[in-house]
């Protein structure tokens, strides 16, 4: 894309829940990411700016922010993709999470909900047992494959209106995680997990409006995973399993 202006006009959220946007002028460079812009501001213009990142290559999931109104992973979002010819970018913390300061949010609720959705594997074998043999072609294994690459960035959580409407809603990422475990044939906690995701503020609260799927930087489809949970919990309820 042609570099329209040499300087970006960047507004960055400063403060906590109460705060304001502050403008910074940042030189535009080739192949610059939004995270590069934030880093430039922190290193050259205002060392007091708080934000999070770690890997810078789209693996850790810590750098998500709201860029021009959309939740995005900033380390893999090129400026050319979000800034128009006028070079304006607005960078805010993720929505649906309490702001600690500037661009850093408190993700406790997000991860607590993974725990509430029974998002950890419960093994049934001991170290003396042989490895489990799981066929890569099995339908359940394929369902896991489709949903497993989550990096826990909370982009989907910030994009979901149901999270905004009902703060207790477990949210797309936790439910997507639960779906991978429900399909893990080695796991021994299916019943508890299905009960955990069948409640009021869980899979059945999802409106299928796909904002999570639309924004997930890993191109996962939490909407499909949640639909799977809806079917699985429905079946479990009908057969008296939960």
């Amino acid at each position, binding site marked *: 894309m042609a570099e329209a202006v040499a300087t970006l006009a960047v507004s960055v959220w400063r403060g906590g829940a109460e705060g304001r946007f502050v403008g910074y002028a940042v030189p535009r460079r080739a192949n610059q990411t939004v995270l590069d812009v934030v880093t430039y501001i922190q290193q050259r213009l205002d060392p007091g700016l708080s934000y999070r990142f770690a890997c810078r290559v789209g693996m850790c999931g810590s750098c998500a922010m*709201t860029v*021009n*109104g*959309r*939740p995005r992973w900033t380390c893999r979002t090129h400026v050319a993709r979000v800034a128009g010819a006028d070079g304006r970018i*607005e960078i*805010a913390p993720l929505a649906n999470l309490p702001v600690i300061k500037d661009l850093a949010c408190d993700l406790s609720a997000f991860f607590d909900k993974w725990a509430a959705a029974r998002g950890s594997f419960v093994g049934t074998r001991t170290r003396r047992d042989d490895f489990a043999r799981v066929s890569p072609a099995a339908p359940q294994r394929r369902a896991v494959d489709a949903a497993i690459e989550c990096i826990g960035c909370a982009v989907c959580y910030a*994009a979901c*209106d149901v999270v905004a409407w009902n703060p207790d809603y477990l949210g797309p990422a936790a439910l997507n995680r639960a779906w991978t475990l429900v399909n893990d044939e080695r796991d021994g906690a299916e019943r508890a997990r299905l009960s955990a995701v069948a409640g009021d503020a869980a899979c059945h609260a999802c*409106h*299928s*409006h*796909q*904002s999570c*799927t*639309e*924004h997930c930087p890993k191109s996962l*489809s939490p*909407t*499909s995973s949640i*639909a*799977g949970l*809806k*079917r699985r919990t429905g079946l479990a309820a009908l057969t008296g399993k939960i």
Partner: protein
Amino acid sequence: MSLAARLRGRTHAAYIAFLIHRLSGIGLAVFLPLHFLALGQAIQGPQALDGFLDWSRQPLVKAAEAGLVLLLAAHLTGGLRVLAIEAGSTRAMTRAVISLGLAASLAIALMFLLGVWS
């Protein structure tokens, strides 16, 4: 964040489909009492109902009815799409299916306007 920025994450086809489904539902819910009122006329005797039916043949009323048919069709196709998603269809999540549902709804409303069923 400005309202425009807030809306920006909600311009994708599936969100618009959700809005149409929700708004058509609300529209239908608002209309239902009027519908029952009209049916109630039938109980009060044929004259009242006939009077109402005459009134309802005016072009403006006809257009409003077509709007209602559109709401009903949009709500129906939207509901079928959500059912398909929940049954595991990924195709139902695509723009193509959303457009198809809207096109079908418009076609049904148009057919009503052209008097296909009267």
